[in-house]
């Protein structure tokens, strides 16, 4: 890629965004490890891509880290048991987005016996590494769940920049902040491994400036690490403005590059990994234990003891809340993820998925739904859109079902970050409208 790339001294400009409240109540709460729950439910789709097929059957004994579901497809990662015990049932669950997927229910024996086959992966070549990343079951842990081996498995020399997403711009969530504070060396050794094995020139850790302690700690470890990494890792404090952690926005503020519509970060030479994903890769290389636990933030007005918890994947929400002191009051709304993009759940039986980074339970007061009124064309939505879209224009096109007009006006770059609806004084269902617009364009393309 020619001359050595320099590291950014300050963030590049980004447009739009909103001043969402931070509400990082749990930022100073050291993570606690949750004891094994009585049972877990491992969903066969915890990533973007093809769902896995269960490879165990009821009655089988399984151990921690043992594969329970897999698929040959490229865009897929294996699922592992997060407890040791016995497979109770293979069942169908309805995901928060309405799709139905298979899931393996495992009764825990409380022993957490690790699977015998677990050993550190042997890595000699770049391809070994990509395969190991797939075997580890890791997906983008920031929320999207895009398989990591696909992100990094691009042509050699295509990528020159590794961006570590530690922005954590969603309100309430502090799990990435805790990762940085409690596992800073893991983060750096993960960066080092990926940079060396993938032949990437520089790494930028993007982190919002509302996490001064994490920035300090990361700066210290980077300074040490830079001695044998030719000074090519830096921590880039970003302004605390939602959605700085959105992939395309983060690439823009870290490198000044704009990902073209319909393209991937690799097309502009970037790989973006969540801080938790990179730290996990490092621990997998050392131990060979696949992704079976996840650090999440449990918060919200209906939770007794908001805190960061390291939870076995597949643990039911109600068991997690129970561990956090139970409900303070009747929960009105429970969401997976942050309040800006998180999914509202129909009940608390849902199991934790790999890509979840928070469980928030809100009381009736905070979950109150606001009545929409007529659009007053104030333009707050358009000003807030980080992607430069004009929601009122798009609403009109959605009403007309004009697929071409929608595509021309950039509907497909909408990432549903929710800035528009957050800013709207008329409580218009703008995000739903954008989703409608996208589905209109998609179905027109199929024809």
């Amino acid at each position, binding site marked *: 890629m020619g001359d050595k790339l320099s590291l950014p001294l300050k963030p590049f400009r980004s*447009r739009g965004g*909103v001043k*969402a*409240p931070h509400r990082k109540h749990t930022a100073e709460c050291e993570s606690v490890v949750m004891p094994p729950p009585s049972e877990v439910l491992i969903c066969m789709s915890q990533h973007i891509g093809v769902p896995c097929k269960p490879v165990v059957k009821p009655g089988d004994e399984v151990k921690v880290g043992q594969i329970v579901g897999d698929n040959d497809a490229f865009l897929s990662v294996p699922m592992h048991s997060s407890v040791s015990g016995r497979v109770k049932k293979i069942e169908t669950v309805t995901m928060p987005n309405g799709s139905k997927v298979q899931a393996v229910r495992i009764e825990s024996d409380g022993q957490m016996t690790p699977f015998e086959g677990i050993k550190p992966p042997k890595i000699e070549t770049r391809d070994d590494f990509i395969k190991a990343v797939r075997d580890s079951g890791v997906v983008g842990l920031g929320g999207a769940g895009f398989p990591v081996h696909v992100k990094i498995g691009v042509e050699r020399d295509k990528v020159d920049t590794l961006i570590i997403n530690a922005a954590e711009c969603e*309100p309430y969530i502090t799990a990435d902040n805790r990762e940085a504070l409690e596992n800073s060396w893991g983060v750096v050794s993960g960066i080092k491994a990926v940079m060396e094995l993938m032949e990437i020139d520089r790494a930028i850790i993007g982190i919002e400036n509302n996490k001064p302690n994490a920035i300090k700690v990361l700066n210290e470890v980077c300074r040490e690490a830079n001695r044998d990494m030719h000074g090519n890792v830096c921590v880039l404090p970003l302004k605390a403005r939602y959605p700085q952690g959105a992939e*395309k926005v983060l690439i823009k503020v870290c490198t000044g590059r*704009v*990902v*073209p*519509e319909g*393209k991937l970060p690799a097309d502009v030479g970037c790989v973006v990994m969540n801080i938790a994903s990179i730290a996990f890769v490092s621990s997998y290389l050392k131990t060979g234990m696949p992704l079976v636990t996840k650090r999440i933030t449990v918060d919200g007005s209906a939770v007794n003891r908001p805190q960061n918890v390291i939870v076995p994947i597949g643990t039911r929400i109600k068991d997690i809340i129970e561990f956090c002191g139970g409900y303070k009051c*009747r*929960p*009105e*709304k*429970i*969401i997976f993820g942050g*309040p*800006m*993009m998180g*999914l*509202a*759940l*129909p*009940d*608390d039986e849902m199991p934790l998925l790999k890509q979840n980074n928070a469980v928030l339970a*809100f009381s009736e007061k905070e*979950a109150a*739904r606001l009545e929409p*009124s*007529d659009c*007053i*064309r*104030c*333009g*707050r939505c*358009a*000003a807030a859109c*980080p*992607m*430069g*879209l*004009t929601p*009122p*224009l798009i609403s009109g096109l959605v009403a007309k079902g004009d697929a071409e007009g929608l595509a*021309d*006006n*950039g509907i497909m*770059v909408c990432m*549903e970050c*929710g800035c528009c*609806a*957050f*800013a*709207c*004084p*008329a*409580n218009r*269902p703008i*995000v739903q409208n954008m989703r409608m617009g996208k589905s209109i364009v998609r179905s027109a393309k199929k024809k």
Partner: protein
Amino acid sequence: MENMLTVSSSPHLSSGATTRKIMLDVIIALVPASVAAVIFFGWKSLMLIAVCIASCTALEYICRKVMKRKNTVGDLSAVVTGLLLALNLPSGLNPLIAVFGCVVAIVVVKQMFGGIGNNFVNPAITARIVLLVSFPVQMTTWEKPFEWLKTADSVTGATPLALMSQGTSTGYMDLFLGNTGGCIGETCALALLLGGIYLVARKVISPIIPLCFIGTVFVLSFLLGGDPLFHILSGGVMLGAIFMATDYTTSPMNPAGKVIFGIGCAVITVLIRFYANLPEGVSFSIILMNILVPHIENLTRTKPFGKEKKNEKA
């Protein structure tokens, strides 16, 4: 508790801004101008304000009722329209004429086109123009400031713009403080500027339209040989630029559009003032630019992130 959770689309947070709060901010921003109106033109202006607000609100309520639509009186937009219309009237105006103006603003311009957010021209400005054309004498009979303190009979005067066309000038200080003839809410530049600063500070409006409007009037009237300071302080420029041209529904949404809109308003205002038979052109300039808004918006669409420039269609 199971099965009783609220499931709704993200985002699950709101900025807390509401239409009602925005309108309330506009009303607060108009308080200085309203107070100035009462100080200069007395109880009659207070009565006009009260009549306009009451009839606009009542008409909004009746319209929604008749049309079997959700009541929207609570969003306070009718109050803003009533208040703005009142501030655009001369103090001696027969209240019944003012009520007619309210009918034009709320019934014809606003509700017949679908209510808040759907009117294509500014209701208060349109009502003022309809009144000006329908009642030319009553709408241009100006009372002198402070006359209400001295005598029961009203003494009429002229606006600074009319005086100028007769060759009489008005002092800058009088113009700035509002001690001149004119519509009750337009004379006191100081009060209007205070309101404008409040709106910008509260982020209710962007300063682009007022700055482009007032700035262009200043530059253009200077270039055409007029007194630039006089032109921005006299007539309806301040009231129009800060409160009427910034109406969300009838002005462009993005910054580039706002620049074009503000400059356009100013150009038409100055051209009318310098070359047309009318002494004042702010209302007409704003309504004309209102009509152009869809075209301005088409011309100034923002480029979506990462969107390739579309090849011109052959």
